């Protein structure tokens, strides 16, 4: 299992804040995004072709090539706007 978190505009678009996902073997963030995009609708829109989407693996900023291990906490969010 992995823990998925969604924030801000992305959270509102998807209508969910967090979920648990089956994740039996390590695979890349790119693969996780493909799986989420395959849900269609807003999921496709947010994960298939959204170059500004940001991701953190275990609370550290990461890129498409990062590996997702079972047990990881993965967060997706739009570019940050604090400060």
């Amino acid at each position, binding site marked *: 299992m992995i823990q998925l978190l969604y924030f801000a505009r992305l959270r509102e678009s998807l209508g969910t804040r967090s979920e648990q996902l089956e994740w039996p073997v390590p695979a890349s963030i790119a693969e996780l995004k493909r799986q989420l995009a395959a849900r269609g609708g807003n999921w496709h829109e947010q994960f298939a072709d959204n170059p500004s989407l940001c991701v953190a693996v275990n*609370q550290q900023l990461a890129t498409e090539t990062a590996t997702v291990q079972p047990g990881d906490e993965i967060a997706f969010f739009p570019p940050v706007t604090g400060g």
Partner: protein
Amino acid sequence: MTVRVQEADFDTGAEIAQLRLQYPMAGAVVAFVGQVRDLNDGKAVSRLTLEHYPGMTEKSLATIIEQAMQRWPLLDATVIHRVGELPPQAQIVLVAVASAHRGDAFAACEFIMDYLKTEAPFWKREATSEGTVWLDARDSDQLSRKRWQ
């Protein structure tokens, strides 16, 4: 190092004083205070709501301060960032840096703000007369950060 993410307001003067009084060798404190503006892109702002990623936010801010401390000979730094609902003219963020000499404190304070603006997981939603919108990231903030690379 002090990092706090909180709904409550903070006392800028007390934070700056606490920072410098801990360090008799500190000749310089440079502080940045961010304030909610009453106008953004010409629209009157009635409220700003700040969402964040609890846990990652604090780690991210600590990492940014550590990077600044590796880069300049700093004595200490304080970052306080508010979350939740903030009215116009509320304080949003304080970054205060103490060092022996002013040049290092100026550079490090601006570095921390530039990285905070582009890497720390905060998101602003603005309520104006035209409704409520999530703010877009600014290219100018990315450019400001890239100067340090």
